[in-house]
């Protein structure tokens, strides 16, 4: 038993040095967002610089909207950092949706690192104009 355990440890240290593990672990950042209410829905903008469209994951599970995005490969492999302000590797944030959102009609677009999500209000809750008839 002790032998097997020793082997496992040996394999791990050979495979990934602590520095390597540190580099591989994705640093998840909460993206800043703007959320506006419109007459016919809600619009969400999230800043996710570095995320290409194919690395984006927008999901709705019950009433929770989750946005996830991984930053693509932007730096060459042989780079040495000189100065770092931002060390995120991925973005993630979740929002609880109100009952008046029509989940089946959510639209998401990505442009220049900005994710835009439109959450339309379901027909029942949209403001309706009621005509007052004068007799």
């Amino acid at each position, binding site marked *: 038993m002790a032998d097997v355990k020793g082997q496992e440890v040996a394999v791990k240290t050979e495979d990934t040095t602590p520095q390597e593990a540190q580099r591989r672990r994705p640093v998840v*950042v*909460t*993206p*800043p*967002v*703007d*959320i*506006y*209410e*419109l*007459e*016919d829905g*809600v*619009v969400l*903008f999230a*800043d*996710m*610089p*570095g*995320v*290409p469209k194919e690395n984006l994951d927008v999901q709705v599970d019950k009433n929770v909207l989750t946005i996830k995005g991984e930053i*693509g490969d*932007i*730096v*060459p492999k*042989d*780079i*040495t*950092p*000189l*100065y*770092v*302000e*931002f*060390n*995120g590797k991925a973005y993630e*944030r979740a929002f609880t949706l109100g009952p008046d959102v029509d989940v089946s009609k959510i639209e998401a677009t990505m*442009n*220049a*690192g*900005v994710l*835009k999500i439109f959450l339309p209000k379901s027909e029942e809750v949209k403001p309706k104009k009621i005509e007052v008839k004068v007799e």
Partner: protein
Amino acid sequence: MFRPWFSLSDPIWQDFDMLSREMEKIFNENYFSPAGVAAARVPMPAVNIGETADKVLVYLFAPGLDPKSIDLTIEKNLLSIAAGRDTAKELGEDAKVTGYYRKERFSGKFRRIISLPEGLDTSSIEAKYKNGILSISIKKKEEEQTKKIEVKVD
């Protein structure tokens, strides 16, 4: 009357002002708020700098810019990047906004001045804007590049 010998509105103090505001934010907001709730508080736009054997690379995390509006200049070893965005215009003029829940994203103009390492060939500067990241690549001068020297065996 006592007068301050400098004004914080002087452009050269703006970076210090921004730095102190960022420090305040870190301590007042992120430090005591539950993990994961506070949004990423980095100065807009955040800058990363790195080097390879023959190049220095600058990355500016500035989403939502019009690439044509980016003003990039270099003077001696000072790289200056100026641009801006107006988040209010993203919705379009005909959008009927009735309110908002969050306004965390940067809106306005910015200028960042980056002091580059010495020994760069500033005539060979390349910049591209992709997925909200401005990548700038500047070649090192021939004599500053890391060279591999072959060891001969006699």
